[in-house]
């Protein structure tokens, strides 16, 4: 059964000091419901991506909390939290997709939410996505592990710090036109290069900011999709793969095998080639991750990722625009919400509702990654 996205909603991403965990998921959810005119009781199930309610706000059992505060507990709608580090949102989307595709439910909400700024050490919490007993013990946090990958990429393929900076520059430029984005300002390559070093060779402006934010999408089977929505966006494939959790266990640090596997399976299911993708939202938690994504998604050959950004091919107007929303880098990274936020952006792009950042697109791809790539979720959408 084909599955369509019929409604989308998303909060602004950023340091939302005035807003609580409870208020942001409600805001995103209400926007999604209103987008497709659903009342509420039609919903069959809720899947919520959230990495660490426990660590960020000391609250577990957040799916029930959300159902409660959304007024859906009244109807007894089943709600489930999905956790896959910062791939939680993408994974929740996949659960929701399967629930509809299987025929179990007609309408399902996939949401993602994270409130990070209530915590004193958000990067410390995000870094719990890596192997605590070996990688964290050794003194590595998430940026450090990406830095190790970046240095090797530079060493093996001649990628430069300027190339990495260009990814940030592009994504910041895109974010200027995204009203929901956290960092809506242009930056220059020199700004990135002269920003404070976080984990050499990665600098502050190579890293996505950690953000508060929530996003929600409503999935429905194709038979009823048109009833709620004039412009349904179809899910052509939604795949997920795993890799070894710790970098030291992977034979090749320069290939994210989970991305490779999930994307190839998605292409097979969606019956398309990578070059047929018109727009992509990829997981640029660090600039090197976007360059690796170009390669592992098959947009270019391994080692040639930097060439795409050097030649401007992933800018809006280029051959394959990547992260028109600004990506995690500039739109912001609300951890568990990010995977859903990517879907929201691509739905807007496919509907032609992306405003000044609009890309002409028929087929779109989202890549959501957990940690350093031990989880990858790939979604292919079409009009």
């Amino acid at each position, binding site marked *: 059964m084909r599955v369509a996205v019929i409604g989308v909603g998303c909060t602004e991403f950023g340091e939302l000091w005035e807003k609580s965990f409870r208020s942001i998921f409600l805001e995103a959810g209400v926007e999604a419901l209103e987008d497709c005119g659903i009342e509420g009781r039609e919903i069959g199930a809720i899947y919520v991506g959230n990495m660490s309610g426990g660590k960020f706000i000391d609250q577990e059992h957040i799916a029930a909390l959300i159902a409660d505060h959304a007024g859906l507990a009244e109807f007894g709608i089943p709600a489930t939290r999905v956790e896959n580090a910062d791939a939680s949102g993408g994974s929740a989307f996949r659960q929701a997709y399967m629930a509809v595709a299987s025929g179990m439910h007609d309408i399902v909400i996939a949401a993602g939410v994270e409130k990070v700024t209530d915590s004193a050490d958000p990067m410390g919490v995000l870094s719990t996505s890596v192997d605590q007993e070996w990688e964290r013990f050794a003194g590595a946090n998430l940026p450090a592990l990406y830095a*190790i990958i970046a*240095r090797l990429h530079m060493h093996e393929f001649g990628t430069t710090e300027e190339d990495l900076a260009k990814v940030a520059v592009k994504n910041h430029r895109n974010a200027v036109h995204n009203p929901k984005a956290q960092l809506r300002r242009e930056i220059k390559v020199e700004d990135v290069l002269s920003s404070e070093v976080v984990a050499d060779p990665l600098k502050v402006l190579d890293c996505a900011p950690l953000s508060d934010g929530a996003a929600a999408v409503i999935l429905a089977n194709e038979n009823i999709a048109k009833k709620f929505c004039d412009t349904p966006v179809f899910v052509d494939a939604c795949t997920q793969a795993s890799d070894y959790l710790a970098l030291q266990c992977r034979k090749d640090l320069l290939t994210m095998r989970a991305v490779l596997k999930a994307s190839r399976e998605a292409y097979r299911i969606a019956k398309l080639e990578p070059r047929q993708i018109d727009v992509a939202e990829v997981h640029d938690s660090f600039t090197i991750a976007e360059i690796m994504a170009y390669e592992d998604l098959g947009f270019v050959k391994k080692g040639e990722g930097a060439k795409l950004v050097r030649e401007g091919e992933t800018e809006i107007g280029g051959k394959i625009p990547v992260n028109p929303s600004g990506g995690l880098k500039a739109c912001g990274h609300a951890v568990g919400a990010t995977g859903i936020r990517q879907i929201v952006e691509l739905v807007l792009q496919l509907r032609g509702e992306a405003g000044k950042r609009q890309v002409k697109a028929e087929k779109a791809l989202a890549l959501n990654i957990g940690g350093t790539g031990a989880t990858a979720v790939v979604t292919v959408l079409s009009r």
Partner: protein
Amino acid sequence: MVPLFWRKIKYRYDVVGSYCEKCGSYYYPKRELCPKCRRKGKLRDERFPDEGRVLSYTIVNGKIIAMIGLNNGARTLAEVCAEKVEIGTRVKKVFRRYGEDGDEGIIYYGTKFVPVC
């Protein structure tokens, strides 16, 4: 968290990993199941070589954290005690403090590396 550290002492104080007697693969950190042979594999603890080579590294919080390729092909992520290293620098293991649980808690010892002179 004391039991969590204690359980791994053998594998942190020295570079003790797993060797699969069936397929001849080395794994670090220790594994309970050989990913290649799975239930048919036969893993045993083995002390890994003292030396290796820096495959890549970063400098974070003033410390060099490196991916080290040991001489048997296994890899370990560890701190390198040096002013600077490069990809390819030969290193050998040393026994050092990784941290401590505040002023009153236990001290976390483990294996780090230093450049081979």
